C-alpha cells in the first residue's frame, strides 16, 4: 500500500535529530511536526522571521503580529527568537538550517527540482522555496511518486521550470524513499507491500535497485 500523508510525515520524522533546526514547507512537510520523537528537541524555522515555532494559539492567545510563513496565527515556543526577513534568509542561505522538508511537482536524476510554476496556469510566485533549496544541504522532498494519471514525477529531466538546479539528494514518495547520486536515483526503501516492480515502472528517471530493498515499518 502506498503511504498515507501521515505515514510520509512519520518517515520523514525519522531523519530528525536532537538539536536540529528544521524548516518545514506547506502540506505534508508541516505534518512532520506532529511526529517529533519523544524526548527529542527540534526547533522549527519559519521564514517570515521566527525560529522556534510553537503550536497554534488558543482563541485567547491569538495575535495578529504572530504568524508563520503560511500566514497562519501561531505561538512562539520556549526559547524562540524573532528577527527580520534578511536575518531569516541569512540562516537559510548561509546553510545554518539542519533539515529542510518541502514538496515538489517533479524531481529529476540530476537533483533538479520543479515546485513553483506550471506554464499556462496562474503563477503566484516562489516565495522562499528557491532560497531554501539553494541554501540547504540536507533537503528531503516529499511528493507522490506519480500523478493521478500514473505519470512519473521522478524524471530524467524536469519538464517544468526549475526551483533549483542540482540541489536535491533525498526524495520520499508515497511508494519509496530514494536518494540521488551521480545522476541516478537509488532505491533505498519501499512502502509496506509495494513491490520493487511497481516502483521501477513508475520511475521514469535512471534508477539503481540494490539487491536488498527493505520495507518501511510503522
Amino acid at each position, binding site marked *: 500500500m502506498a503511504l498515507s500523508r501521515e505515514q510520509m510525515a512519520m518517515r520523514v520524522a525519522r531523519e530528525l535529530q536532537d538539536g536540529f533546526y528544521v524548516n518545514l514547507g506547506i502540506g505534508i512537510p508541516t505534518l512532520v511536526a506532529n511526529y517529533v520523537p519523544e524526548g527529542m528537541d527540534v526547533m522549527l524555522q519559519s521564514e*517570515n522571521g521566527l525560529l522556534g515555532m510553537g503550536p497554534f494559539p488558543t482563541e485567547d492567545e491569538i495575535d*495578529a503580529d504572530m504568524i508563520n510563513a503560511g500566514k497562519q496565527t501561531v505561538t512562539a515556543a520556549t526559547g524562540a527568537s524573532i528577527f*527580520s526577513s534578511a536575518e531569516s534568509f541569512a540562516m537559510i*542561505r548561509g546553510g545554518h538550517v539542519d533539515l529542510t522538508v518541502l514538496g515538489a511537482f517533479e524531481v529529476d536524476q540530476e537533483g533538479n527540482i520543479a515546485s513553483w*510554476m506550471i506554464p499556462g496556469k496562474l503563477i503566484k510566485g*516562489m516565495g522562499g*522555496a528557491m532560497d531554501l533549496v*539553494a541554501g540547504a544541504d540536507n533537503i528531503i522532498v516529499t511528493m507522490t511518486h506519480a500523478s493521478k494519471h500514473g505519470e512519473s514525477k521522478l524524471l530524467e529531466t524536469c519538464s517544468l521550470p526549475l526551483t533549483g*538546479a542540482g540541489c536535491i539528494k533525498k526524495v520520499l514518495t508515497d511508494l519509496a524513499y530514494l536518494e540521488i547520486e551521480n545522476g541516478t536515483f537509488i532505491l533505498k526503501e519501499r512502502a509496506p507491500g509495494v513491490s520493487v516492480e511497481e516502483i521501477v515502472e513508475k520511475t521514469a528517471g535512471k534508477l539503481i535497485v540494490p539487491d536488498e530493498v527493505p520495507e518501511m515499518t510503522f
Partner: protein
Amino acid sequence: MSGFDKVVNSYEEAMAGLEDGMTVIAGGFGLCGIPENLIAQIKTMGTKELTFVSNNCGVDDFGLGVLLVDRQIKKMISSYVGENALFEQQLLAGELEVELTPQGTLAEKMRAGGAGIPAFYTATGYGTPVGEGKEVREFDGRKYIMEESITGDFAIVKGWKADRYGNVVYRDTAQNFNPMAATAGKITVVEVEEIVEPGELDPTQIHTPGIYVDRLIQGTFEKRIEQRTVRKD
C-alpha cells in the same frame, strides 16, 4: 527643539512628495506588519503608475490590494502574489507587471540597497527562470547569479514603538521586511502604535536606528488576520 525630531502630525504630511511613477518599498509579510494607514493615504492621494517592492500585494480590500482598485500600481516586485482576485484580473489583462523575486533575494536586495551595495551574488535562482539573463560567476566550484539591489523613492514601514528621534522597535513577526525597507528609501516614513520620548526605549533593543527614518507618525491599526488558526484545548 531638536533637529532629530521626526514626528509629523498628519498622514498628508507623512506622504507629502509622493508622485506618479515613483518606486515605493513597503514592509510587511502577508497582512502582518503592513503600514496600513500609509497605504490608505496613498489611496486617498490617488498617486498612479507606482512600482511597489513588497513581499506580497495584500488582499482585495486590505493592504496594497486597495491600490489596485483605481489601478494605482504599475508594477509589483514580490515573492508571492495573487491572494486577491483583482490582482489576477489585472495581471491577465496586462495592466499590471510583476517581477517575481525569491523571498531571500528580495530581502537582500532591500538590505543591500540600504547599505550602498549595488549588487551581490547568490546561488538562489541559478538554473531557474529567475537566473535567465543574469551574470553568472563561479566561486569555489559553485555557480551564483548576480542580483542588483533596490532602493525606493519612498519606504513605508510599520513599527510597534518609536521614540521621537525615529528609533524603532518592531513587535513579534510583524518585523519581517520592515527593517530592510526602512534602510532603502530616499524618504523613509514609519508609522507606529506608540511614540515615546527619547530615552524611554532601551538603546540596545532598537531594531531600526533613527538615522534611517525621515518621518514618523502614530496611528491606529486594524491588524487584520489572514489565516486565523487556533488549537482546540
